[in-house]
Structure formats: structure tokens, C-alpha cells
């Protein structure tokens, strides 16, 4: 357990370093970090499903989207959520994400493996279709431009202040999800990921476990959406589109599924590549696509799997196929 404590310490030190360094850097870095952190909350929610429960959700952008649209619609149509009532919007965002997941879960949880992937894709497309076409509410293709960030004593229109707020939400989310996956409930989820049938035989209601995990992930998705709306200042169908869900999934796999830190790492790298590299070279997407392909082919456990890969190499043990357990489970399920 000593190494576990060491790991926690390392994460805390990294977070504190981030808190110290980012505000001193230019406005570009502050904005980049804010965006990456808001999105990292979504990536962690995907990780809860993929890495810890073994459910590969292709529709996580749906919850992200409803959170973002809720914030934008309330702010522009009702002027709600621009003062202290921002906190009510945060709460509503989490609730609407969770409620939508509770509804969608009824359809999706029964499915397994690739069918789960397809049904979550279809559910995500339902929300995208509404966002894209329901002009009177969502502004259709043009989306909604936010008028400004909330001001409740703290003026969030200042990018650095807003960074601190998103950082706080991000850290609390990480902490809560960490506690969750280490709890007996989280352990049962991992059991379901490894062998669902065995958990059923042991008397666990695996459907309910997966359903609850799905709802929690939806709630975090909604929270990420609220923050994203204020980070971006603009909400459009792009927020809910299939590629957003896929991005979140790829970030998790890139960092390493089943490790919350991996999801954060993935989000950081993808945003870094996308926003920093795109200012340097026009062909940045080759690098991003290449990183994805390389990770999937050569690093099934993601970047977080590198240390164990190196360790294995030096110990000279025969390399047992180190496939990620979540993906292994998917593969071993009879289709």
C-alpha cells in the first residue's frame, strides 16, 4: 500500500504544480488548461464506465451536451446562472446529466459489448439530432453564444479566476471518483468488468450496479458540460457530435483505461496537441491520428501502462499479453 500512497502524493504534487505554474503562464496556456480540465471531467466519466465497469460508451457527449445547452439556454433566455445562481445551474447540470443517463440507461444497460457501443451511439445521436434541429431552443447549427461568465463576488470573466474555479471542480471530481472506485461499490464494478457472470452468481445485482455507474457518469458529464459552456462561451451541435464522444473515449484509451489519472493525461495531451500544435503546423491532425493509432496498436494499456511494460522488460519475464482488462473482457464476451 505504500506505493499507493506514493502515487496519491505524486498526483497531489502534480496538481499543486499545475495550480502554481499555469496562472503565471500566458493567457493561452491558462485557457488551454481550463478547457483540458473541463473536458478531463468528461474523460474521467468515460473512464468510470470503460475502465472500471467495462462499458464502452460511444454517447457520452450527450450528457456533456445537455449540461452545456442547459447552461447556455438558461443564461441567454432567462439571464439565469450569471450571479450566485451559477451554483444552482451547476447542480441542475449534474442533475440533468444524471437524469438523462437514468433514462438512457434503461435502454442501454441490458446490451453488452459491441451492442452497448452501438446503442449508446444511437442515444447520443438522438440528443445531437435535437440540438441540431430544434432551432427555437438550441439555435440549430449556429448554436448559442454566451453573453458572459457569472459574477458572484468572484468575477469569472477573468480567465485566471475562472481557471481556479474549473481547477476546483476538476480536483473535487477526481477526488470523488477516486473514492468511488476504491469503495466496495467500485470494487464490485471492477468485478463486473472482469467477469459479470461470476458476480451474478455471487448474488450481485449487476444490472443495478452498471445502471448506477452509468447515472453517476452522466452526472459528471453534465457537470463537465456546464463548465465547458462557460469555458468556450459558445455551445453548438459540435458539443454533442459523435466525434466528441469518440474523443473522450480515445483520451481514456490513450492515457490508460482503468486509471483516472490516465484519462486526465489523455485529455491534457489531446488538447495540448490540438490547440498548441495547430498553431505551429497545419498537419497537426496527422500527429493526433498517428498517436491514436500507435497507442491502440502498441500500447493497449495506454501511457499509464508504459512503466509496467518497461519493468517487465527489465525483469526479463516472458511478456504476457498485457491487454487492458476492460478491453479483454469485451473481447472474451460471446457475441
Amino acid at each position, binding site marked *: 500500500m505504500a506505493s499507493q500512497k506514493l502515487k496519491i502524493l505524486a498526483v497531489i504534487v502534480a496538481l499543486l504544480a499545475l495550480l502554481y505554474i499555469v496562472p503565471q503562464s500566458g493567457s493561452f496556456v491558462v485557457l488551454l488548461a481550463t478547457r483540458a480540465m473541463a473536458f478531463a471531467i468528461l474523460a474521467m466519466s468515460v473512464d468510470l464506465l470503460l475502465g472500471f465497469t467495462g462499458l464502452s460508451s460511444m454517447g457520452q457527449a450527450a450528457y456533456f451536451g445537455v449540461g452545456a445547452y442547459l447552461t447556455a439556454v438558461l443564461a441567454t433566455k432567462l439571464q439565469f446562472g450569471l450571479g450566485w445562481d451559477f451554483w444552482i445551474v451547476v447542480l441542475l447540470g449534474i442533475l440533468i446529466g444524471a437524469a438523462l443517463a437514468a433514462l438512457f440507461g434503461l435502454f442501454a444497460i441490458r446490451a453488452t459489448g459491441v451492442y452497448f457501443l452501438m446503442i449508446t451511439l444511437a442515444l447520443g445521436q438522438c440528443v445531437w439530432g435535437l440540438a441540431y434541429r430544434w432551432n427555437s431552443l438550441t439555435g440549430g447549427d449556429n448554436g448559442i453564444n454566451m453573453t458572459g461568465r457569472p459574477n458572484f463576488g468572484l468575477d469569472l470573466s477573468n480567465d485566471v479566476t475562472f481557471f481556479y474555479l474549473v481547477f476546483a471542480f476538476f480536483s473535487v471530481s477526481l477526488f470523488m471518483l477516486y473514492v468511488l472506485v476504491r469503495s466496495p461499490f467500485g470494487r464490485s464494478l471492477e468485478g463486473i468488468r472482469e467477469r459479470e457472470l461470476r458476480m451474478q452468481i455471487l448474488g450481485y445485482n449487476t444490472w443495478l450496479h452498471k445502471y448506477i455507474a452509468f447515472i453517476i457518469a452522466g452526472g459528471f458529464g453534465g457537470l463537465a458540460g456546464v463548465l465547458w459552456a462557460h469555458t468556450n462561451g459558445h455551445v453548438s451541435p459540435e458539443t454533442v457530435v459523435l466525434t466528441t464522444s469518440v474523443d473522450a473515449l480515445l483520451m481514456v484509451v490513450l492515457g490508460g483505461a482503468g486509471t483516472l489519472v490516465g484519462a486526465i493525461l489523455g485529455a491534457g495531451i489531446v488538447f495540448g496537441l490540438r490547440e498548441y500544435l495547430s498553431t505551429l503546423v497545419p498537419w497537426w491532425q496527422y500527429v493526433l491520428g498517428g498517436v*491514436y493509432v500507435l497507442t491502440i496498436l502498441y500500447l493497449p494499456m495506454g501511457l499509464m501502462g508504459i512503466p509496467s511494460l518497461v519493468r517487465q522488460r527489465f525483469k526479463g519475464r516472458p511478456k504476457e499479453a498485457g491487454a487492458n482488462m476492460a478491453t479483454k473482457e469485451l473481447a472474451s464476451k460471446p457475441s
Partner: protein
Amino acid sequence: MNTQFWIVQIFNGVSYGALLFLVGSGLSLIFGVMRIVNLSHGAYFLWGGYIALSVIWATGSWALSLPLAALAVALIGIAMERLFLRSAGLEWLRNAVIAVGIGVLISLAVNTRAPQIMGGGWVQFVLIAAIGALAAYALLSRIAVVPIDNDVLRQVLLTVGFAFLFQQAALDIWGGNNMDINPPAELTRSIQIAGIYVPLYRVFMIAMAFVIGVALWLAMEKTRMGAAVRATVDDAQMARGVGIDTNRISMFIFALGAFLAALGGVIGGAFLGVYPGLDFEMLPLAFAVVIIGGMGSLGGAAIGALAVGLADNFGKALFPELSYFTLYAPMVLILAIKPVGLFGRE
């Protein structure tokens, strides 16, 4: 809302469904045979359209662009399937391809960041790329790859990675403008039947899909190869057991799927246009076709395509604000009730 409205809408829906059949049937066959959810299928559609445009610019012949674009994309499909999805035996080639890619990127990076090293000469460019590629190859061939063949999620994500690469490559080669494929004048006319104007091109789309559908059906039902494909869809392990080379079937079907998608891209290019982002617009529609019809079933894909074409058209005409919702919500219901689709077999 008179009868004429309904007839026109049904006709439009059916012709759109014809286009969707071309995209969806390939996706469905690939899923049925390989259990791969191919997310680069939209990119094949888009590339079909773009390659056809290049052929038309070079030769001026629209008729020639149809087979050429489809064959070119089929080759891309084969390369992707052989090198990345089923790479047993060709690992060295896959590593080499990736290494060359990395080498070229390194060269490009050096060229952008430190042009004084490059000096603008292509010799230096190739030299740096070669050194980078060799180093990358040496590294890659030392990493033991965990086979991807039985890992659904990794296969899906790999096809997404390629979809992004195809997207960027298309942007670099053909630019970001919205372009149209212009079919010959004989096909762009409209004829008048019973007071209704019928665009000939849409009739052509329906005819084309019909011919291809019948040909596919005959090939699947009446030939030895088709029987082997059906056996693989039903139970790949069993098919291998009785001596069917499922590896070769998977390559063949992947190429066929890419071929059909590209054909759809050329035909659809006259009517949807060809533009960046079209790939990820077509992809969910193709999925709707496959899911409603049932994965791996050709007849199902035809019915799914008709259903999606009609639902899309009537949705847009009758309740525009909910139009995509009315398309995807039935898809969810079908998946929830019968995960393998209406005509799919477990």
C-alpha cells in the same frame, strides 16, 4: 398535403434510401463477417467522392470516375484491413508503413521548425525521413504487439484513428471547399410523369442500388463464395472448422464494403456535394441502416435503408425540429428490444 406531396416525398425518400443502401450494405457485411464496427466507413464514402472528382478533372469522364474511385477506395480498404486489422504475417510491413509515416512527419517538423537544416532540398528531406523511419522501425519492431484481432473496442478505435487521418489527408489533397460532382447532362434532366417532375438522376440512383443489390444477393445466395460468407457471418469459428478461409473472406468483404461506400460517395456527390465533414455526417446514417436492418443481413440493409431514407425525408418535411430525433429514436428502440436488429441473427 395532397397526393402529389406524398408521392414526391416517397420518391425522394426511396432514392435517398438507395444511396444509403450502398453505404449501409457494406458496413453491414463488414460487421457480420468481422464483428468490426468500422468507423472509417464514412471516410470511404467521402474519399470515393473526392477521387471521382480527381478522375473527372483528369479525364473529363464521369462514367469512368465511378469504377475508378470505387476500386481505388477498395484498395485502401484492403491495405487497412491487411496491415492493421488482420495483420498476422504482415507485422513487418505494418511496422514499416508506420515508421515511414513517422519519418515523414519528423522531416516535415524539421522543415517547419528549422528550415536552415533542410536547406529546401528534397534530398535532405528524404534523408531525414529515412533516418527517422529507420529509428522508428527499430523501436516498433521491438515492441511486442498484443493482437488486436479479438478485441472489439481496440478495432473500433483504430478505425476512428484512421477516420481522422483520412479526414486530414482529404483536406490537404482536395482543400476545404464544398464541391459538386456533375453527372452527364442526360442524367440531370427531369421528366414529367402524370404532372409530376421526376429528376432522372434520382431514378438512376434507385436503379443503380437495385442492380447492385440484386447482384450482391445473387452472389451471396448462389455462389460458393457467397455461401462461405454466409457461413462466416453465422459462426466464424465453425466456418473455420469446416475449412473455410475466413481470413480471406474478411479481406474480400472489407474490400467490397469499401468499394460500395465509395460508389455511394460518387453517386451521392452529385446530390449531397463533396465537402469536409461529410464523412462523419454519413457515418451515423449508415449505422442507422445497419442497426434497423440487422447486422450482417443484406435484405435487412435494404429494408433499413428504405426505412431511414423515408424517415429522414418525412421527418424533415413534416416536423423539421424533430427530424433527426425521429430517425435515431426508432434505432434506439430496436436496439433495446432486439439488439441484433430486425433481420439479424444471433
